[in-house]
């Protein structure tokens, strides 16, 4: 039973595990005792990560649509159709009429190839991926405040914090192996504070667990800072030496008294003071956050506020502190790092910056477009308007994952040409003109970058299933057929190109990653990586305070839509269930879409646990099963977005954060009806 060491494909923890191989099949998983993140432990998804690999439903041959039905075809035929159609559309409507969706599930090498394909082979910056929908506001906000949009500290350090503030992250479900560190910290005496619209699993062991009204994060964070300054708990030395624009912040938060904040957020005044004191007095306080903070029209503001809070108390740039966004997908950090975003090349080098553009033009031997591209949501809006005519999707399923899903489906139906490259025939792939079968994580080499910036190896354990091929190989072939030659011996060679063009990855090469990877920035081939960021200086020099005012969410409840819907994920399912839905063990845990509703609301609506109910917003309606639970706050309901049968994103609001263009998944107004 040979065992091949690799990195888990599910979440951003990046756990190390071996795939057990028997007769060319992956039949099991062995945790790695020595892995720095997982230490011999795994979550239920990790233990069952092998289950989807040999599913009957894997795509094994390229498909083309004829008369509305898919027929199998050869690679040669499929690739020439894709190249021909893309060339035609480019000629007719221009390069910017084509858009590419890259994937946080794919390797760094593949994401790099995808954005190079868009920029160099097609000639457009219309390349983006689901990071736009999860942490683009983190990347924007932390870049503005610190100069670097990533988890400041390492997973290991969490265990030694004195105070841990978790907000907008259901850590035990979404990042179980990070929850382990939180649990351990609490066992060692740390105080855990959770501020989240729902009562979470970790609330069971929290010192304080508070439920704010969704979308009021800037208010309570400003409130904490108000109290901290009022009680002189700020780190004056840190503020003076390391930061700028403090006075502006001070002026703004002065108005956010506990009384005012309590009225906005629904959190008791005394609790705001208590949290402020706990956090303010801690020697090492760590903030952990995730999409509960980022997926708002004020997402960037929320992130800036957390950065303000950390800087105000000197809780950044040292061990076991920091502002720590937990990245969702296994490689969402990496996909951003290597430039699968509409405005930056790899290493966050701006497309708008002429010297960066020159550097990449030279390296790629082609004149690169200077016009900023379209973000994910804008791509679909433009497709709907007929301004985007072809979309090339690699390993994403926007019909389920993007807000206002009905609108996305309509947009996809409108484009002239849709190519989807995936391991399964996803709901999105069903609409495609050409479907290209890709190899799963067990069938290729490459790297993923986990949430703590650790670039780790992914290794080929078995040959690709059927005729499937690595995503990078497919794209290189399409590019070459379109007349822009892209050819690499292997993925290591692609990483060498990334390193040569990307300062934060400069010292990275596959050969250097065999000892549990490296945490970027890795400045050169001798540098051993960076455990935590901003040690003596912030990446941008001084840390910058931003005075942020509270703004209400885009859509508030009213008479017709009296409840607030917030969405999220659960432990055993993954995103749109393309993988977990094919895993017998995982799908059995939660096979049906449901809605969490408080006992008070259920009583008022005369709804019983287990009943199917109708939830509607201005954009659509779905019928999930009611789960009456006191983890829901009266007036607020929660629906996991995984299920196409009860797709929460038919309800969600596509209103965008103006800076990061992230949609407001976490707040929309809905009504509930009995069926």
């Amino acid at each position, binding site marked *: *039973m*040979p*065992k*091949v*060491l690799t990195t888990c494909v599910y979440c951003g923890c990046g756990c*190390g595990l*071996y795939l*057990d191989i*028997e007769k060319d099949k992956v*039949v*099991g*998983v*062995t*945790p*790695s*005792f*020595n*892995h720095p993140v997982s230490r*011999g*432990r*795994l*979550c*239920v998804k*990790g*233990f069952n990560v*092998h*289950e989807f690999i*040999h*599913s*009957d439903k894997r795509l094994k041959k390229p498909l083309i649509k004829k008369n509305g039905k898919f027929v199998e075809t050869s690679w040669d035929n499929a690739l020439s159709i894709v190249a021909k159609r893309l060339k035609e559309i480019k000629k007719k409507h221009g390069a910017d009429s084509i858009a590419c969706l890259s994937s946080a599930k794919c390797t760094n090498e593949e994401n790099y190839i995808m954005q190079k394909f868009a920029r160099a082979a097609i000639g457009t910056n219309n390349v983006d991926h689901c990071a736009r929908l999860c942490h683009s506001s983190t990347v924007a906000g932390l870049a503005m405040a610190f100069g670097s949009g990533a988890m400041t500290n390492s997973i290991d350090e969490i265990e030694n914090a004195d105070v841990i503030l978790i907000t907008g992250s259901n850590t*035990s479900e979404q990042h*179980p*192996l990070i*929850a*382990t560190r939180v*649990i*351990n910290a609490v*066992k060692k005496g740390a105080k855990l504070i959770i501020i989240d619209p729902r009562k979470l699993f970790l609330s*069971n*062991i929290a010192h304080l667990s508070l439920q704010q009204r969704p979308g009021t994060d800037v208010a309570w964070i400003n409130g904490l800072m108000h109290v901290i300054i009022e009680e002189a708990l700020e780190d004056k030395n840190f503020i003076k030496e390391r930061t700028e624009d403090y006075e502006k912040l001070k002026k703004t938060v002065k108005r956010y008294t506990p009384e005012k904040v309590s009225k906005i957020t629904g959190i008791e005044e005394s609790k705001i003071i208590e949290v402020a004191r706990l956090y303010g007095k801690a020697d090492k306080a760590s903030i952990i956050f995730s999409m509960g903070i980022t997926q708002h029209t004020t997402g960037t503001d929320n992130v800036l506020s957390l950065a303000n809070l950390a800087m105000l108390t000197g809780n950044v740039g040292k061990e076991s502190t920091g502002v720590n966004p937990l990245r969702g997908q296994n490689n969402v950090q990496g996909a951003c790092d290597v430039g699968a975003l509409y405005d930056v090349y790899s290493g966050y080098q701006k497309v708008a910056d002429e010297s960066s553009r020159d550097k990449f033009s030279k390296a790629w031997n082609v004149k690169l477009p200077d016009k900023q591209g379209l973000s994910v949501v804008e791509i679909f809006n433009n497709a709907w308007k007929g301004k985007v005519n072809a979309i090339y999707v690699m390993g994403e399923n926007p019909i389920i994952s993007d807000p206002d899903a009905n609108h996305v489906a309509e947009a996809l139906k409108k484009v002239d040409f849709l190519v989807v490259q995936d391991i399964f025939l996803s709901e999105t792939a069903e609409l495609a003109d050409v479907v290209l079968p890709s190899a799963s994580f067990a069938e290729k080499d490459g790297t993923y970058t986990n949430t703590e910036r650790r670039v780790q190896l992914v290794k080929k354990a078995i040959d690709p299933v059927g005729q499937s091929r690595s995503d990078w190989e497919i794209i290189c072939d399409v590019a070459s057929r379109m007349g822009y030659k892209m050819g690499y011996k292997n993925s290591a060679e692609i990483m060498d190109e990334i390193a040569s063009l990307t300062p934060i990855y400069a010292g990275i090469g596959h050969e250097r990653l065999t000892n549990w990877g490296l945490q970027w920035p890795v400045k050169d081939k001798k540098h051993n990586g960076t455990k935590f960021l901003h040690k003596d200086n912030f990446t941008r020099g001084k840390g910058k305070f931003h005075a942020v005012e509270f703004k209400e969410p885009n859509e508030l409840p009213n008479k017709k839509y009296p409840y607030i819907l917030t969405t999220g994920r659960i*432990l*055993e399912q993954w995103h749109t269930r393309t993988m977990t839905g094919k895993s*017998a*063990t995982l799908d*059995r*845990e*939660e096979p*049906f879409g449901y809605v969490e509703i408080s006992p008070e609301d259920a009583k008022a609506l005369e709804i019983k646990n*287990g009943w199917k109910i109708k939830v509607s917003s201005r954009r659509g309606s779905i019928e999930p*099963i009611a789960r009456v639970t006191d983890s829901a706050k009266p007036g607020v309901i929660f629906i996991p977005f995984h299920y196409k049968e009860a797709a929460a994103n038919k309800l969600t609001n596509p209103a965008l954060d103006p800076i990061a263009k992230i949609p407001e998944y976490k707040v929309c107004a809905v009504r509930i009806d009995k069926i």
Partner: protein
Amino acid sequence: MDKINKNDLLKLLTSLKDKNKLIAPVKAEKDIVFDYVNDVKDIVLDFTNTVKPAKEFFIPQREDILEFNNGKIKAIFSDEKRVFFGIRPCDLKGLCVMDPTFREGIEDPHYLEKRKNTVIIALACTTLCDENAFCESAKAGPVADGCFDLQLIPLGKNEYFVENGSKAGADIIDKNKQLFKKADKSDIKKMEDTKNKKINKKKVDLDLFLEKLKGRFNNKAYWKEASLTCLRCGACNYLCPSCFCNNMVDNTKKRYRCWDSCMFRGFTRQAANLIPRDELYTRFRQRLYHKYKWHKERYGVHMCTGCGRCVTYCPGLIPYIDIINEVSNSNGE
């Protein structure tokens, strides 16, 4: 009574490998694992214990049971002859503990054939493998008291006392006489010292625990508190050398058996969204009662061998040993 030195042991294993598939501890990239061995030089003799227990070679994490072909069904068996070298006493006892389940009533040949076709050469422990091990209390180690064909008990660095436990074991010694030497008095003393040596840091009293479990079943508050940080990963079943619960899953060509976990909500899922053990604490309680009470009452053995994995690899950091001791020392309510 015989002994064998390291070089001769490797020779023995080489010769056994000719006619059998040899399973032994080897180094995977970063960790020690059990695997099929091509070259005995790859075998690691001084390993502590693997993360995944040896049961995966008898009830694999996933194993094809039936094959469907044009409306016909065929059962799939492997009749490979195997030698399993280096299994530690706790993992060995794990197999002994699940044997009666697979034997009772209608036998399960998919498991039992593998047991029958595998010669087991156990390797006794002389050093502590895991802070959380309590194999002494579980009467499983550090030296096995049965269930093996041969057991090697280290006599210092390069020599092993050879204990014979079956006819298959005796045959191996017989056929390879030139590789074994007679153990002398000092060897026997060393061997006995090893058997008597206590190396565990943790201690429990499983019989007392069983007694005290009797009155605690309906103490909801206790089980809720105890299971407070369970992250539903299944590690305490998956990595347990004696847990055997399994699921049957179909794909279009095969029906396969795979590991299951009573800690999963879906474990008792029935049609119509009915889940008898829907609440986490009932599943947590089930696991402990099944292991420490019901299996013992039914088959006379605890379904626990004290390997400590369920504590060491629990991402919720649930202190199972403390729970056992807490209940054992309680008034039993």
